[in-house]
């Protein structure tokens, strides 16, 4: 096993981790603000992937135009889901929202199968994104570089938004105490909507990346990465954005290294490995790596 092979596996892990991290951020933000475990969040990956496919291949839009459109469309989908499914549940016990999110998830999967058929579709990016770049010992396609770089830019932008802007301050305040946030004059409906919009936009972009990375998409593709991103959010400490980012990369790297470094016979157990990692980390750090103890809130 050469150094080059390991370096290559690390890069692959970072690519996968970028996508997990982007999805995990949304999980964490939504849980942080309304204590909702949103199982429908993974389905936004699927929606983002199919939107990208439509924009690139049906409408023949250039990639630099399609990508921002996917981001915006993801935000709109998030707003619709929040308004349609979760706002009516506001104030209900936590488990009600959880069940509602499972319902939305199953509904979106079946809607996908109904409209798009369960047949997997090939997902191709323009040639200039498929060309292979060789840097030292590692090689990757341009699209993989774009995935890693744009994930970093988006996460940097998000951290700036959350910590340096008025909306971000309102989001953090609402996450801590909805009543007091209202007393400050913060419109919590708008703040919660913005949180869904941002989280869903990032998940939709992760869907674009997913298609680019694996080259094939189907209406059920969101479920497993959604679940794993949830694991990433929990590992990092749910409610914490840096935690979600860290958890995403830890999960992506460990999954790829597990498959890449152990004998091939074990590679079918990659998902078992992911969830074992979760259990081990939670045994040692019950609130995740960067998480703080959070009180439940209906």
């Amino acid at each position, binding site marked *: 096993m050469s150094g080059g092979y390991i370096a290559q596996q690390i890069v692959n892990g970072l690519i996968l981790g970028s996508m997990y991290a982007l999805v995990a951020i949304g999980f964490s933000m939504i849980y942080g603000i309304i204590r909702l475990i949103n199982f429908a969040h993974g389905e936004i990956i699927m929606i983002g992937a199919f939107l990208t496919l439509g924009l690139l291949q049906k409408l023949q839009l250039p990639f630099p135009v399609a990508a921002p459109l996917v981001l915006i469309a993801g935000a709109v989908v998030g707003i619709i889901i929040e308004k349609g499914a979760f706002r009516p549940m506001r104030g209900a016990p936590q488990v009600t929202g959880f069940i509602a999110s499972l319902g939305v998830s199953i509904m979106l999967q079946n809607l996908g199968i109904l409209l798009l058929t369960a047949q997997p579709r090939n997902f191709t990016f323009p040639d200039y994104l498929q060309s292979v770049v060789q840097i030292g010992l590692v090689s990757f396609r341009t699209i993989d570089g774009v995935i890693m770089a744009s994930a970093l830019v988006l996460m940097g932008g998000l951290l700036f938004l959350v910590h340096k802007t*008025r909306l971000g*301050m*309102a989001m*953090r*305040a609402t996450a*801590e*105490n909805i*009543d*007091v946030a*209202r*007393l*400050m*004059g*913060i*419109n*919590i409906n708008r703040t919660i909507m913005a949180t869904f919009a941002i989280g869903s936009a990032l998940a939709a972009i992760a869907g674009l990346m997913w298609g680019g990375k694996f080259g094939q998409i189907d209406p059920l593709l969101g479920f497993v990465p959604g679940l794993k991103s949830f694991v990433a959010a929990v590992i990092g400490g749910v409610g914490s954005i840096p935690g979600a980012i860290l958890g995403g990369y830890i999960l992506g790297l460990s999954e790829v290294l597990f498959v890449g470094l152990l004998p091939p016979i074990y590679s079918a157990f990659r998902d078992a490995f992911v969830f074992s990692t979760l259990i081990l980390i939670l045994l040692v750090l019950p609130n995740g790596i960067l998480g*703080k103890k959070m009180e439940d809130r209906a």
Partner: protein
Amino acid sequence: MLKIDDIHVYRGRTHVLKGVSLHVQQGEIVSLIGGNGAGKTTILRTISGLLRPSRGKIFLKTSKTSGETDISRVPAETITGLGVTHCPEGRGIFSQLSVKENLMIGAYLRKDKEGIADDYARVCALFPILGSRSRQTGGSLSGGEQEMLAVGRALMSRPELLTLDEPSLGLGPIIVDNLFSVLAEINRQGVTLLLVEQNAIKALKLSHRTYVLETGRMALSGLSAALIDNEKVKKAYLGGT
């Protein structure tokens, strides 16, 4: 400035306020005392819009309302903009936000940058500890400092009427003395205060007028200076015989 007219409030199925009326004149300090569960907190939460009365009206007249307006159906996030700021029970500090952010969020609805900067300086002059700890998180402050932060944050909205729910709760006597003298100073600067207190003697000494609430109804009201000698008040709330 504020006139509450026969409000009834339920929390769940419990009928907490059974027809409460009170009024607050501009420039006054009015205190509201009474035992546990009398409904004091409920009154303040209803004024601030966090709770809605099932019956009755709440009239407010400030420089930001057009004449006397019924605010009993106005949501909490709008009330602050009408000049009424509520300092909630338990202080409600945002523990993850910095001290400065906690103060700035008090001015969330304001757009006048210079006025905000002025008020920030004013709050830091009133509570110097807040200025020197501006970068710490709110959660790292002591109880007394958090109360100052809560009052400072409320002042950042430049309220005309400030309602305070048990500001002395859990604080040592020296800190309470200090806090109450700041409250008197805030009142001298033109802010009307409505104060809910367990510490009845302190509240009676600070305020101009006092209402005594008993299980959802007003039992007594009058000038604080007169109530302090009232036998019934003495017996029930001041530990006298």
